[in-house]
């Protein structure tokens, strides 16, 4: 166990996440039954500082992957876990969830399932309290992260009185306060109204630009993914079926259709435009589309 933690500080490679030959199934629902494999020999590496979006249909294994990255799989869920996951050099099988939590934080889809304090300030401070951060530093950090997510001036507000977008931003702040190197966002805008989505993506955009973090985002909003991501991974039935830049991924209409994922409308327009004109455009944003179409 100590070897793993020592290695964590000697990260010689660029890779901050390494999933090696991961095969996993949850415990069977009924005794005697064999649970289906969620992953079968999955391999994935993520470099420091990358912004990776993960897309895939329901049941593809996206959330299970998140839980495997932070150790809940297998430490809490049990099941059959073969292979290795290295987070900043630490093998998740060999360290505790709290060790991993120092390096990796997850924001889930439903803010209400992760907020539980009476005030925003308490919510944001909770993680740090558990890490034994001195009080004066904690206060400073609370204010710093609340500013980053645009939620200052409401320290004593009950998080449950906030809108969906505001709740998610508080959830993000509560993770940021622990200064993880890796931030995972599991469908952070699902269920939010347009304003809420805009607020959360705005924070994500800011984090990408201003912080030196590795970010993994699971999202269905292909149009937003096209804007932010360095890299897009398509997961289907526990397998990585595509891995590339947004431009590469959204040009692969058939691959996306197979996964039941919708392309950004502009990408679909690009494909149809190419069909009609024999061209080879691959625009993925509105601006790029206008550049071509205005001619």
């Amino acid at each position: 166990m100590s070897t793993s933690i020592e290695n964590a500080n000697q990260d010689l490679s660029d890779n901050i996440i390494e999933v090696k030959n991961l095969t996993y199934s949850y415990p069977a629902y009924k005794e005697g039954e064999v649970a289906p494999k969620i992953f079968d020999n999955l391999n994935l590496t993520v470099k420091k500082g990358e912004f990776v979006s993960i897309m895939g249909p329901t049941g593809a294994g996206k959330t299970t992957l998140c839980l495997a990255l932070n150790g809940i799989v297998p430490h809490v869920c049990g099941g059959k876990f073969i292979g290795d996951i290295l987070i900043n050099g630490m093998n998740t099988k060999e360290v505790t969830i709290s060790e991993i939590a120092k390096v990796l934080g997850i924001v889930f889809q439903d803010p209400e399932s992760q907020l539980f304090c009476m005030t925003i300030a308490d919510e944001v401070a909770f993680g740090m309290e558990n890490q034994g951060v001195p009080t004066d530093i904690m206060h400073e950090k609370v204010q710093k992260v609340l500013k980053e997510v645009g939620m200052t001036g409401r320290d004593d507000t009950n998080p449950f009185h906030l809108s969906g977008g505001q709740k998610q931003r508080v959830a993000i702040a509560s993770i940021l306060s622990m200064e993880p190197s890796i931030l995972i966002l599991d469908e952070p805008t699902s269920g939010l109204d347009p304003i809420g989505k805009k607020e959360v993506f705005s924070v994500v955009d800011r984090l990408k630009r201003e912080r030196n973090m590795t970010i993994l985002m699971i999202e269905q909003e292909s149009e937003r993914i096209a804007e932010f991501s360095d890299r897009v991974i398509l997961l289907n039935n526990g397998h990585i079926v595509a891995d590339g830049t947004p431009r590469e991924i959204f040009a692969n209409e058939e691959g996306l259709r197979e996964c039941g994922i919708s392309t950004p409308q502009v990408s679909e327009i690009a494909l149809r435009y190419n069909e009609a004109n024999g061209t080879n455009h691959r625009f993925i944003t509105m601006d790029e589309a206008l550049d071509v179409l205005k001619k």
Partner: protein
Amino acid sequence: MSIDATREPVIQAIDLEHTYDNGFQALRGIDLTIYKGDYVGLIGQNGSGKTTMIKHFNGLLRPTKGKILINGADATTLTVGKIAKQVGFVFQNPDHQIFCPSVREELEFGPKNCGMSPGEIKDAVEDALESFRITEFAGHPPAILGFGLRRKVSLAAVYSCHPTVFIMDEPTVGLDHRSARELLDIVGELNRNGDTIILITHDMRVICENTKRGIVLRNGKLILDGTTREVMSNIEVLRQTQIRPPQVIELSKELSAPDVAEFPLNVDEFINEFVKTKMVM
């Protein structure tokens, strides 16, 4: 929109106001007629009054001022139970609605409480299982099914009572594209069979690609009511309420003359309008 005398109103809101006990006025005078066979997309930010308004449509809330008519009858003269037979409501979170130990029992619950005979109940349940393609899960406890399936179960459970108006709150949230498409295809089928659909969603592509009429609420008032095309093309008013129409509409506006007021609603229409036409030229 003035009342269309050629069509049958199913739900009418007449100068509808609602102020909650804490003094918050959620609805500030809504005049709205929903007709039989309408497929309405209801849009608005959280807090705009959408949920308050639809709770008047199924009798969960009563007006503090103004009136609601359900199939011509004043809603205040009807019990919630009576309205439930006519207007079905599907919750945003299926887990807030599902509570039976098996899918079949879930689908039986409504018909039993509507006073259907055992034969009618059996038929209604089989029809619901088939229509939503969940027959193989009839004996399963809903709790072990995936989210998309639980969503289908909640919809099927409302369908089994045979209401003629379905109100669905964010039916595609949490579903991947394929599952959402499947669900919306079933909803489209219901509408083609004559049922009235009111769909609340923040997904503008869902509105454009499925609904025929759009209604936008803001701060308790109705700010847009028209065909889906009219409403979604009104970029200026939508922007005031921080709603962005789909990319095809925004692109179309940039590519069209300033006086054009209606735009393509999907990629096919966009291609026909801006790409194929160019080729002909």
